[in-house]
């Protein structure tokens, strides 16, 4: 269905001029996943996006640059690529918010609307990041699942297919991760 611009990147890597290759790889990734990044950024940053200097476009660029610097650049298709970029997406957003807060003494909070499946409440992105980091420490698989679902916009069905497990398993895990986060954020 989807043109896999990313896959040809793999072939490029490892031969010829590295810098040129990387830039070609970046361009290919950018083209292939630009829309997806923008959509994720738009969704995560909803109404408060205006408070941030970062534009969805910049976010997409930044994500591609950071990903290109990763040692291994082997992506097996769109979902795999997005899955790997989920953590990076989150990191970029958080970095950007911190940078903004450092510049302005009275920076507004940047909240995100949790999707209805996560309780549909508005919470501070940094709080979400803190909670996820905490979850990473106790249950890394659960945290990764949230990253992929929320920061990469993958569906549970896609994640199940990627991991080669049943949708049922992923859904149970998702529900557990969600409950943990809701409890954590509610308590915080």
């Amino acid at each position, binding site marked *: *269905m*989807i*043109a896999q*611009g990313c896959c040809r990147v793999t072939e490029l890597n490892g031969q010829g001029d590295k810098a040129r290759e990387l830039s070609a790889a970046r361009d290919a990734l950018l083209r292939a996943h630009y*829309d997806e990044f923008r*959509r994720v950024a738009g969704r995560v940053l909803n*109404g408060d996006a205006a408070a941030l200097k970062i534009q969805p476009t910049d976010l997409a660029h930044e994500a591609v640059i950071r990903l290109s610097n990763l040692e291994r650049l082997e992506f097996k298709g769109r979902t795999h690529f997005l899955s790997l970029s989920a953590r990076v997406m989150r990191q970029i957003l958080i970095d950007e918010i911190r940078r903004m807060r450092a510049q302005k003494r009275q920076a507004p909070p940047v909240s995100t609307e949790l*999707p*209805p*499946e*996560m*309780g*549909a409440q508005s919470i501070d992105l940094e709080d979400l990041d803190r909670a996820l980091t905490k979850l990473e*420490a*106790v*249950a890394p698989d*659960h945290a990764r699942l949230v990253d992929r679902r929320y920061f990469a*916009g993958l*569906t549970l*069905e896609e994640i199940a297919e990627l991991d080669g497990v049943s*949708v*049922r398993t992923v*859904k*149970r*895990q998702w*529900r*557990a*991760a*969600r*409950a*943990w*986060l*809701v*409890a954590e954020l*509610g308590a915080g």
Partner: protein
Amino acid sequence: METSLSLRSLALFEDALDIPPDERAEWLAQACGGDQALLTEVKRLLAADELAERAMPTGGLSPDDAPMPARIGHYRIVDRLGQGGMGDVFAAARDDGLFEHVVAIKRVRPSLFPATAQALFDRERRALATLSHRHIAQLYDGGVDETGAPFFIMELVRGAPIDRYVTDNDLSPRQIVEKVIQVCEAVQHAHQNLIVHADLKPANILVNEAGDPKIVDFGVARLLREEEAEAMHPQTRGYASPQRAAGASPTPADDVFALGVVLRVLLTGERADMEDATTLASQAIETSEAFASRPPEWRHRRSRMVQGDLDAIIARACAPKAELRYPAAIALAADLRAWLEIRPLAAKAHDRLHGFRRFLRRRRWRVAGGVAATLALVIGLSVTTALWTQAETARRQAEQRFTEVRSLAKYLLYDVYDRLERTPHSLAMRRDVARVAQGYLNQLADAPSAPADVLLEAADGLVRVADLQAGRSRPNLDEFDEAVKNLDSADAIAARLSGGEYQARVAGLRAGIAVRRAALVMNSTQDLDAAGSLLKAAREHLGEVKTSDPARLALATRIALEGAILGNWKGDYAVARARAEEAVTLAGDLLARDRAAREHWYLASRSQDALAEAIYYGVGEAASEPEYRRLVAVTSDFANANPDDMLGRRMVIEAHWALGTTLLGVGGRAAEAVSELDRAAVLLPGLLAFEPDDEGAIRTERIVLAARAQALATAGRFEEGVALLRGQLDINTRAAEAPGARPELLRSQGVTLAMLADLYADNGAVREACPLYAKAVAVFTGLDQRGLLSQLDRDASFKMVRQRQETLCR
């Protein structure tokens, strides 16, 4: 320690999901084996889960997690055909011994249905089952299974989605167009039965083994929670028209748009969610990644076939503005058929291309999109004919459906809504109900064949929705913009009906709309001139209403009342007083006619309030006291007659507040004022507890608290008063600084600043007062510069602040 605890609790939580809720507690206790910390942690997760589930109730695990059921209804499940975000599709056989009938059963996740849609589901299903067309997968039946999941039983289509069919069979543009024409005809048939698909996309157009396209899921999308449906299928967004994407309820024009996208996608192999598909389809073919493996000549040839007329047809079908699109699916089909027919047919490949180009050259005007425009005339005729021949059968079905939709909208807007209004914490549900009803009403109004009485009723309904959203006669939903939009739609309908057989009723409707618009304008943008002309229009329309019309008296009262309020805002207190006296008299007649009607109580209370205000500002505080005492009496009667009505309670609170603050100004009566305001404060918690999110109630609370503080200080309890006002100022400031705060909130902030400053100044603390006056001046100046300050504020609050600042703060 904590790590392993969390991990174990997550695992236990996942297992607990498999245990039926009523057995969970016992199971958990056993599974934790006396580990109290673990038990507490799992319980905490389960509680959090319940919280999250409440936002999207699923009633346990989603059905698509469950194993394949053995049966649904009278059918034995044979196979699972598919599984997706929406639910499952099974193949099933009816084996009651009489005959073997294989069907498809689509079972939808209950979470995709808003609770309010359950009632619609049955009605919708019945309407959909009447839809019978060769290219629509027939819906046979449906219901709700024992797990609460709605299901549809429909014709089993053995085949593939149309996009895959096109690729697998390497269809030519010509063959693609033929298939799309058949799809258009099916969509047209549904539209004539007032059914909109609302989710047309290749995945919903299957092509069976005989090559017949069959549309599935007709009308199903409309029953789903919209945000859910969207979250599940991000790739379908490309098929949504700008109006749909903006959240408007689905119309036939949206289906036409989707058909255009389908055609483009099938021809070009592109994905639909190319956000700005500004390139022509013919150009897109040459760069399409889907055709990357094709030789350049193949692409070139195909792009030439699409170029010109087909480009123009797609552009018209996908026009961003609905009125520029084909008026009906059948019009799109007719253009496509014309394209098929004007193509030179029996020629060799080279000659064909050549001939085609020549043909286009000869009719250059057509290439530039002319086909669509000129054929529209012919089509207009054929649509009429088609409509006419099918009129007899369609008419009966349409009438049936109008009746259903009407009764449904009425049921939602009156019965359901009124019941919800008496239910605490129902604000979110009320919003949903109003929105669903609004969707139905717009659908009625948009139906091309809707008769005048249906339209009139739809307009009445939209006015009612606007009242629920922003009317002051009830605890409203605080949706000003939506309310204005609905009043505009209602007025557009009324204008269309104007001059017809319902002229007198239309005049009443328009008078009602104009007076409501005037009230909204006064409450939000404060454009008093606009409010004045709206009231003038309302009075003119009222003149056309029959004197025998039972609604006339209430309408006249409302117009007089809003006239009085406008007078007060403008500072024309004599006019205001005259209008208010008229309104009070009329409202008295209304109450004499029917003391049970809530609207009558509302009008009587508000009219008395407007009268008291006109005297307060126009004559003086002492003169207005008796009128305010009358206000307390009438609102108390209102509240006592309707104890569970929060509006009555709010009006009593506001009456006590008004009387209290009046006494405060008289001098020497501060103690009386405090006790009057205490009476208001006592009633407040009940109001807020009933609906904690109600903006109006929150505003009332702010006003009362601020006044109490002032009264306390005046009565010699200065410190208590300052503490109250400081707290209030913090709240006001936060509200005013929130993004998108309405001018009203800024005004509250300015007023509170001024009051705190006055409080300090009156008690000799000038040093504390001056910076506060400066801030208040800044707030009011800001509002004034943006043209948002009313004359009343300019004459009273702002003027006083500046005067005091000048005399005190040199």
